[in-house]
């Protein structure tokens, strides 16, 4: 198996304020994966990404991008890494295209003869070709976000590090970004995408890491993560039959039934769903609907990071 595209060992950042924003995390992003980096606001995602890119010095621990140690190996590895960190940032009075040209000029390994072609292709890819000649200042929030993506795609990349790439995008834009990520992943690019929008991550990620208060709580393949949750059975029936249904399910050995209107939810445990269906029908419960569910990513996320709305710190 190939070595991971991103790895960290005991990566820690204590800011001068004394706050430990990232606390000894062991990140591992396999090659070719789309890694969803989740966590509530202020959990340390951006700080981790900054350390990975050599923008912030770790207080302790190390990090590797494409096997190169950071920040020492940045000069050779970063040209292969496209980044979007904490929102796009460009020179407001330059056009979108001129902004890309500036970044390309800064890249000592880029070929100046192809700058124009590559930047136009990148703009095309994010649907910004029409606004290429507009000053960045006049861009809408979503257009700015798209230009940030275009900058990350200015050259063929082996790794994309995208911090909140869909922030400010309209539903179409969000879908396009998802398509884009999938397309790039299919072409072999590893994508590390941070977000707190679960739906976005859920649909494209092959791997998930969840951060909370500076710690990496879990990290695994998405499917394996959802497999881990307790399956539940949801039975929909008539309101006056929920009592019977509850009795039948309890008798079968299903745990903790919860009644909610015409629905009864209980954890399946080792009982097969078809056994429960047969028992319910046998007891004369009119089954309108029946579903065996895995817990959603959102549930998992909330379970791990807590219900509270307030940021942790």
């Amino acid at each position: 198996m190939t070595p991971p595209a991103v790895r960290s060992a005991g990566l820690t950042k204590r800011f001068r304020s004394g706050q430990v924003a990232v606390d000894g995390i062991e990140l591992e992003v396999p090659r070719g994966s789309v890694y969803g980096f989740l966590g509530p606001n202020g959990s340390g995602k951006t700080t981790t990404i900054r350390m990975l890119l050599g923008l912030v010095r770790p207080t302790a621990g190390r990090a590797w991008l494409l096997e190169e140690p950071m920040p020492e190996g940045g000069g050779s590895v970063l040209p292969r890494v496209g980044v979007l960190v904490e929102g796009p940032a460009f020179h407001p009075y330059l056009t979108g295209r001129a902004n890309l040209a500036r970044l390309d000029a800064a890249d000592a390994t880029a070929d100046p003869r192809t700058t124009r072609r590559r930047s136009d292709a990148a703009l095309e890819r994010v649907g910004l070709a029409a606004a290429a000649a507009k000053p960045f200042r006049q861009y809408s929030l979503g257009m700015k976000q798209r230009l940030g993506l275009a900058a990350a795609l200015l050259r063929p990349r082996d790794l994309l590090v995208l911090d909140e790439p869909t922030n400010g995008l309209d539903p179409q834009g969000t879908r396009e970004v998802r398509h884009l990520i999938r397309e790039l992943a299919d072409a072999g690019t590893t994508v590390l995408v941070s977000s707190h929008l679960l739906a976005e991550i859920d649909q494209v990620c092959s791997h998930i890491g969840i951060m909370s208060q500076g710690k990496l709580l879990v990290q695994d393949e998405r499917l394996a993560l959802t497999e881990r949750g307790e399956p539940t059975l949801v039975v929909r029936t008539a309101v006056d039959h929920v009592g019977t249904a509850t009795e039948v399910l309890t008798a079968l050995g299903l745990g903790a039934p919860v009644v909610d209107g015409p629905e009864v939810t209980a954890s399946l445990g080792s009982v097969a769903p078809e056994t429960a269906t047969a028992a319910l029908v046998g007891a004369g419960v009119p089954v309108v609907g029946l579903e065996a569910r895995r817990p959603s990513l959102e549930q998992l996320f909330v379970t791990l990071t807590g219900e509270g709305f307030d940021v942790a710190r």
Partner: protein
Amino acid sequence: MSRAEGGSRLLRSELSLVFGRRRNITLLVGLATVPLLLGIVLFVTQDSALAGQGPGFVGRVTGNGLFLVVSSLVMCLPFLLPLTIGIASGDAIAGEAQAGTLRYLLAVPVSRTRVLVVKAVAALAFAGAAVAAIALMALLSGAVLFGLDDVTLLSGSTVPLGEGVLRIAGVAVYVGLSLTGLVAVGLFFSTLTEVPVGAMAATVVVAIVSAVLDTLPQLAAIHPGLLTHHWLDFAEFLRLEVDWGVLGEGLAVQGAWVAIFASLAWSRFTTADVTS
């Protein structure tokens, strides 16, 4: 393609950024209007009772337009040029940090040392452009309004126009080089903050404080090392025998400020966290 070519590409991009920015162009145009205004005021009042009066070389301008270059530079030295330097160098790193573009530049990647060098060169180029804008506009308006003539030196001797122009050019070059220390100071401040205005203001304050300290006789011992102490030594070009030792000392002091503050800026910038 080689590193050197890449470096010059970034430098060209930086220069076009600095010289393409409307604020900076406005600043240069503003500076260039100083000699124009001064020339017009002197031209209008030259037959009045106030003619031939004024500090520095103002009194000599009506006789010889070439002196408009010197008197314009003298007028701009205490505040306008430090302000220009403050804006150009204070903005260098802090401006990119505030805009957030610094993190993308570093992730391209560009080494921090190279960013600093390119920013320093661009700030120096802008300082040079500021001095050139004043000097050339002064030469032009001086020539049109008063005509150019042989130059009477501070020593009372007169040298031919050709030599006079060379000497005045020497004045402009020396003034430009005198500003390098302040550029380095501004660059250092620029690495300390994400608020460019703060770095700009601090740079201007340093120039003003230095000028104030230079007037306190109690501090005579440190005067020769002050950033602004040798600024008026450009007058050496207008003396009978140019003492290159005096000019060299002035430039050596600037060199010392540059060395110290450039190395401070480098240490700070290459170790700082980019959290903007």
